[in-house]
C-alpha cells in the first residue's frame, strides 16, 4: 500500500476528530485552496487563561488536508495559545509522518495556515506564506 496513505492517515480521513463547528467560539476562520478546491474552517474557544479549551474544524478536501486538520485539532485541545502560535510546518509533518512533495505540502499545511490566520486575524493566508519564505 502507498506509504502516503498509512493506516493512521486514512483513519483520520475517514473518521476525522473534532469535526464540526463550535458555538460559542472566540475565533473562527475559513480558507479555500483554489488549486485543489480544499476548504477548511477552524473554530476555537480560547478561555481567559489564553488556553485553547476547544477546537474544531469543518470543510472538505483531500485525505492529506483533512487528516492533517484532524490531527492538528487533536494536538491543540487544551494547549496554551502561546504554544499554538509556536507550532510550525515540522509539527504538522511530524503528525502526518510521511514524506510530502511540494504540491501536497499545500494540502498538508492548509489547516495550520487557517489556524494561524484565525489567531492573528489575517484575512489572507498567503501573507503568512510569503513572510515565512523569503529563503
Amino acid at each position: 500500500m502507498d506509504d502516503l496513505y498509512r493506516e493512521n492517515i486514512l483513519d483520520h480521513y475517514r473518521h476525522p476528530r473534532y469535526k464540526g463547528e463550535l458555538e460559542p467560539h472566540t475565533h473562527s476562520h475559513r480558507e479555500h485552496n483554489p488549486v485543489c478546491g480544499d476548504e477548511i474552517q477552524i473554530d476555537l474557544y480560547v478561555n481567559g487563561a489564553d488556553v485553547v479549551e476547544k477546537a474544531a474544524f469543518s470543510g472538505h478536501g483531500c485525505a492529506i488536508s483533512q487528516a492533517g486538520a484532524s490531527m492538528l485539532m487533536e494536538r491543540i485541545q487544551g494547549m496554551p495559545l502561546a504554544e499554538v502560535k509556536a507550532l510550525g510546518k515540522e509539527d504538522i509533518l511530524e503528525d502526518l509522518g510521511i514524506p510530502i512533495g511540494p504540491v501536497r505540502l499545500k494540502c498538508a499545511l492548509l489547516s495550520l495556515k487557517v489556524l494561524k490566520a484565525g489567531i492573528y486575524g489575517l484575512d489572507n493566508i498567503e501573507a503568512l506564506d510569503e513572510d515565512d519564505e523569503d529563503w
Partner: protein
Amino acid sequence: MLNIEAIRQDFPILQQKTNGKPLVFLDSAASSQKPLAVIKAVDTYYREYHANVHRGIYDLSEKASAAYEQARKKIARFINAKSWRELIYTRNATESLNLVAYTWGMQHVGPGDTILVSDMEHHANLIPWQQLAKRTGAALKYIPTTTEGLIDQPAYAQLLDSTVKLVAFTLMSNVLGTITPAKAMIAQAHAVGAVAVVDGAQSVPHLPTDVQDLDCDFLAFSGHKMLGPTGIGALWGKKPLLADMEPFLTGGDMIKQVGYDRCEWNALPWKFEAGTPAIAQAIGFGYAVDYLTALGMDNVRQHEKDMVAYALEHLGRVEGLRIFGPQDPEIRGGAVSFTFGDIHPHDLASMLNYHNIAIRAGHHCAQPLHDKHGLAATARASFYIYNTLQEIDCLIEALEDARKTFEL
C-alpha cells in the same frame, strides 16, 4: 502504424525504473518527454557551435544562425505555412497568445467591440483576452460548450455579429479532449470580419496541421509539448497581419535602424524577436519536428485515436469512474479527464505516483471550465507516441488499488 517499442527506445526517461517499476508517463498534455535526437541536438549545439546569432561574422555564429533559421523553416513547413517569415519564435504558446493580444489586439480592438472566446479555454487563451478587454473597453463573451464538451454551434453563430473583432479558441481541449470544428468556426468568424486566433498547444503535437487549409489568422503552440525543449514556442500569423502589427518586445535584433528618437523595425519574423533568442531550444524544436515528420502526423493521430478508444472503453468500465468530454475518439484527442468516486484527484495522483504512474490532478489551467461543471479538480491521463495500451491497463489496476485503500 507507429512502432511504439522502437519509439520508446528513443526516450531515455522511459528506460528508468523506480522501485523496479517502469515509468508510466501519462502527462504528455502538460509536457511531453524528449527523444534522444532532440536531447543530443541541444547538447551538440552547446559543445560545438554555440554563438550569438544573426550578427556574427565568424564560423560559429554563422553556423548557429543557419541552424536557428533552418529550424524555423522546418517548423513553418510542419504547419504548412506559406512562408517561414510567418513563424515567430516565442517562449511558449502562452507568450504567443499574449503577443497577439498586446499587438494586434491593442491596435484593433476598442470600446464597443467584442472578443469571443470559448468557455473551455486554457487560462493561456483566456486571461490575455480578459486583460485585453479590460484595457480596451471591449466586451469579452464566451462561446458556450455543451455538457459533453462540444462547441454550442447555434450559440456561436448567434454571438457572431459585426462588433466581433477577434475570436479565440482551442483546436483541442486540454481537459475534455474536444477537437473543435476549427475550419468552419474560422470561416464564420471571417464572415463577420473577425480575426481568428487558434490555440494549437494541444493540437499541433497530436494532429496534422495545415494553417493554409484552416485559414486561421494566428496559431499558437509550444515546443515542449511536442518533443521539443522547454523554453521555446511559436506564433504563426498571416504575413499581411504580422506586417501591419507594431512590435511587441523591443531591443536588439528586431530593428533595422535605431536613432535616439526613432526606430525602424526589422523585416518579418525578426521584428517580433527581441534580444538574444532561445537558440539551442529553437534548434532542438526543429529536431522534434523532424522526428514527428518522420513518424508521420497521420500515424501519430491514429495511435492517439487507438489509445483514446481503448481508454474510453476500458476506463469507462471501471465502476465509479466518470470520464469528461466527447465519447467519440474521432472528435477528441488524448487528454482524458476523469473523477473516481469521491476520491480527491490529488489523492488519486499521489496513489498512482506510488505505482510510478504519472497523471495530472487539478484544474489543468482551466478553472472556469471546472467551475462550470461544478468540479474543483479532475484527474487527467494523457497520451502520446510512446504510450501503450498496456499502460492503460496499469492505470486501471492502480485505480482498483486506490479503490481498496479508500474503501470506495
